């Protein structure tokens, strides 16, 4: 472990990653924003007329926090996994491996950049949604806090996937086969209280339920599961991902053979 943090290295990686996002602005930010906004226009307008209110909130407003969560968590994974997988794929990773940086700097750089990008994506979606949906945010600080923690945790997960993956198929495996179903079943479009009791219990095994529930709580003060438990779940998830990343750097897994 390093005695002093190589701040300049962190800054270099951050700047580099942000420049990459700017070069591919449509792919990295515009496209996820557009597809999410389309979701809440179509779902909110079409289905919202039939389900007028969920827990006293208009359906269009109800789905906004969940949709933001769904987008930022898949984007966090995608940003971070690509950011570290590409240098491995092209071979430019040699420079990171031979640089005087510890896992702390690499994580701050790559995961920090991925999280910043997905937070930006989330905030843009939120901003745009104000034009379509009557929104109010009861606990804005909590909202930003949950958003940040979620983006950081899932960027870490993406980083791990990017190091684990040996080809592009593996890179997509977890996001497509695990994260997408979990996030669609995570209660973006419904309150889990609307489900039959058995499915309510099963849903509690889905970590995304906790993320969406507490994020929605920060908007409207209604939560499917207690906020404290949600916070504990996501905090634990963050720490587990961080430990795995630390282990990766300690052992050189898939990086230094």
């Amino acid at each position, binding site marked *: 472990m390093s005695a002093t943090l190589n701040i*300049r290295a962190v800054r270099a990686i951050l700047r580099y990653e942000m420049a990459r996002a700017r070069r591919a602005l449509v792919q990295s930010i515009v496209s996820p924003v557009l597809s999410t906004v389309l979701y809440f226009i179509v779902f909110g307008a079409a289905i919202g007329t039939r389900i007028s209110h969920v827990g006293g909130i208009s359906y269009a407003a109800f789905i906004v926090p969940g949709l933001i969560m769904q987008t930022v968590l898949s984007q966090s994974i995608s940003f971070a996994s690509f950011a570290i997988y590409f240098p491995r794929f092209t071979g430019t990773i040699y420079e990171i491996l031979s640089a005087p940086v510890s896992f702390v700097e690499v994580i701050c750089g790559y995961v920090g950049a991925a999280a910043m990008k997905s937070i930006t994506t989330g905030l843009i979606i939120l901003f745009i949604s104000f034009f379509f949906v009557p929104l109010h945010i009861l606990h804005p600080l909590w909202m930003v806090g949950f958003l940040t923690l979620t983006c950081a945790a899932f960027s870490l997960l993406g980083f791990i996937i990017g190091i684990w993956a040996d080809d592009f198929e593996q890179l997509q495996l977890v996001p497509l086969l695990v994260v997408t179903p979990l996030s669609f079943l995570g209660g973006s479009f419904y309150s889990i209280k609307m489900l039959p009791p058995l499915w309510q219990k099963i849903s509690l095994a889905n970590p995304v339920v906790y993320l969406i529930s507490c994020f929605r709580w920060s908007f409207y003060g209604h939560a499917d599961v207690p906020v404290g438990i949600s916070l504990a779940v996501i905090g634990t998830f963050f720490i587990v991902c961080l430990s795995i990343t630390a282990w990766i750097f300690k052992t050189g897994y898939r990086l230094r053979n």
Partner: protein
Amino acid sequence: MTPAISIKGLSKTYAGGFAALKDVNLDIRRGEIFALLGPNGAGKTTLISIICGIVKRSGGSVTVCGHDTVQDYQAARKAIGLVPQELTIEHFETPWDTASFSRGLFGKAPDPKLIEDLLKRFSLWDKKDSQIRRLSGGMKRRVMICKALAHEPQVLFLDEPTAGVDVELRKSMWDQVRLLRESGVTIILTTHYLEEAEEIADRVGVISHGNLILTEDKDALMKKLGKKELVIDLVEAHSAIPPALSGFDLTLSESGRRITLTYETGGGDTGEGVGGISRLLEKMKADGIAYHDLSTRQSTLEEIFIRLVGRS
């Protein structure tokens, strides 16, 4: 003064059981150009990769300017610039951005003047804002050298720097390498061409099958390895070397129809050198030993390696 690099008992066995390095010991002096010579798969890149922190060592120790590459890796790596063998470079970046990135990554404060000087020195200044994918192969390699030099390293590794490089670029690259050495940078380069080592290096190390077979001053090595052979095909078979030719370093083939003279290229006109050829041919003519063909060949590096391995 501590050596630029000190390697003690270094070994590397990959997960599959392949022993890429076996008990390598080597000191590289400050300010020298050291050529690491060896055939493909000898362990050159593994050795460099361990020193630079890309590959984990299995045993032994390495220090760079006195800093252990594991315990004190940050200080060790700050001293190193690495130009890998493959053209691995971010294609959508510009030379300016990527060199500036490298400097930051190694913990140095931005220094636009230094980057400008570097790009100018390597004739990349007019391409500083072009995407790297639009540059030629030679330019890409120069960008990689600029990246490696952007943090002002004390030790520079060039892993097969002339692979796929034309004569012109090779010449200018060697000029730059000499300039760097004059400014006090230690340079370690790998190659499998003996001529390259001859052209540029102060000292040469030969590596084969993971063993460092020898390290020697270049001049001494060239003398040792610079042997040639003259092969003469005789008209008649002989059972032994004809007595008249006993004063020469000759071997007779099993068929008795071919004799081989080994001589040194640097041997001069008399004695063991090139002059020996004419003396031998004159002797053969005087003695009536007829031949129908002759040819000369230089020992290839491959053969030299085999000879060295056999001896070690």
